[in-house]
């Protein structure tokens, strides 16, 4: 059974002027436990809406959104979210206290939660940065705190909303490799949103391409069966997958460009 299932989901936003905007319509998606699913789409295609529905930040207008067979009613600790910007970090807390936050809310003893928080800071490569505040850390390090904070809370699935989009290209490359390492080490299920084809292919075990918005849905899903050494932009099989994905997204890109640019 799929861990996350969206079936016939639509989401309509109503503007202040009373106009309706249909973000997604008839959206179906199943994510199996343990997979790394990348949702790829052009800007404005509604991919963040999908993540927000799974996170419980938004309620579906119609259709059902489930995790482990239970309907999602709102945000919950079973679904950890890594945001694009660092404004989700608690700037008044140290890196360690940020990672402890979820455990603290659940009343886990100080000693235990600090031990666990340190383990996860180590895992994301932030050993020894315990007492730094977010403002003292680089963009990449801040995203590492976010990832550690979510992992330390031991959710069933990680929801990542373009977490590396605001980083420079070099840091982004490093973070992608680190995330793969963490994913292999923890075996967590991941739903990862991106508009970057390369990033999706590097990370995903399966990737879904969305139609351009509005009223978007999945255009297709393809498995990315690449070995570790092939998750590299120069590998032949990588380029093969890239062509396949690019062919799918090209028309959508043209539509999106006409709408927004």
């Amino acid at each position, binding site marked *: 059974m799929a861990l996350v299932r969206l079936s016939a989901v639509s989401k309509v936003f109503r503007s202040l002027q009373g106009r309706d905007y249909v973000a997604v319509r008839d959206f179906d998606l199943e994510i199996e436990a343990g997979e790394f699913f990348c949702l790829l789409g052009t800007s404005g295609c509604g991919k963040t809406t999908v993540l927000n529905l799974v996170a419980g*930040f938004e309620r579906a207008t119609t259709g059902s959104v489930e995790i482990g067979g239970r309907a999602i009613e*709102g*945000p*919950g*600790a079973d679904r950890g979210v890594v*945001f694009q910007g660092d404004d989700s970090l*608690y700037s008044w807390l140290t890196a360690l206290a940020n990672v402890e936050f979820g455990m603290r809310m659940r009343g886990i003893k100080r000693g235990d939660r600090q031990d666990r928080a340190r383990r996860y800071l180590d895992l994301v490569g932030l050993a020894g940065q315990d007492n730094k*505040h*977010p403002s003292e850390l680089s963009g990449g390090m801040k995203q590492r705190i976010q990832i550690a*904070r979510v992992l330390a809370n031991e959710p069933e699935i990680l929801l990542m909303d373009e977490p590396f989009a605001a980083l420079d290209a070099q840091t982004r490359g490093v973070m992608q490799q680190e995330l793969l390492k963490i994913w292999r080490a923890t075996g967590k299920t991941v739903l990862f949103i991106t508009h970057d084809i390369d990033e999706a292919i590097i990370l995903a075990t399966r990737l879904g391409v969305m139609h351009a918005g509005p009223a978007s849905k999945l255009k297709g899903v393809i498995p990315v069966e690449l070995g570790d050494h092939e998750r590299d932009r120069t590998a032949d099989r990588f380029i093969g997958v890239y062509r396949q994905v690019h062919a799918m997204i090209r028309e959508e890109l043209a539509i999106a460009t006409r709408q927004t640019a």
Partner: protein
Amino acid sequence: MTVFGRLGERAKILLGYAIGFASMFVLWHVASVYLVSSVLFPPPTRVFVKGYELARDGVLGQQIAISMQRILIGFVCGSAIGVPVGLAIGSFAAVRRVLEPYTEFFRFIPATAMITVAVIWFGIGEGSKIFLIIYTTVFVVIVNTAAGVGAVAPNKIRAAQSLGANRAQIFLFVALPATVPYILTGMRAAMGNSFITIIAAELIAANAGLGKMIWDARLFMLVDQIFVALVVLGLLGFVTDRLFRWAIYAFAGRFSPIT
């Protein structure tokens, strides 16, 4: 590389202040001795001597204590009222809709306009002064606190929800600390208002305080004494504001882009 380059940050700040203040007194001296040269504009030396005499006799300290005590009591009470009200306005739309008319209405009636009413209601003593300081503090603190609650990044709230925090925890551990810099900024502005208000109130109707000291000095043309009071006001304001700046930095300034 300048001379400043080799000094620490703190030393640089202190040196800057020292130079700034020194130049202020030099300018004052030049202006009073060479440009104006009138008994109505005493040079800094005379003012310092006068200030020393007043301090030695205990008069100055007493007046400062009276004015600062009024400010402190009113300011603490005003903030104690303003912060929770501001938090409530910022957190609940219904509370905001009901209370906004109050803040938006009284914000434009300055405390100085309320002096006469305050004296009629509460007399010439402490009551009217403390009322006026509370009045001048409370709305600034409310408006800033409410704005701070409204400015908490939605992702901070969402992250907390996804980490398993309940509503009370989100308020206590996310919204409140995120609002602290705004609260302190509001209190800092309120402290500035308090200085204006207390002097105005003491000038018009009081039996003691720095404002009263200025007013009395005017009657006897004691210009030196007026200047002592002015310098003391400047210094008191400067020191309290530095304390606030320091508090903002210590609590939140280094984490938050508000100064």
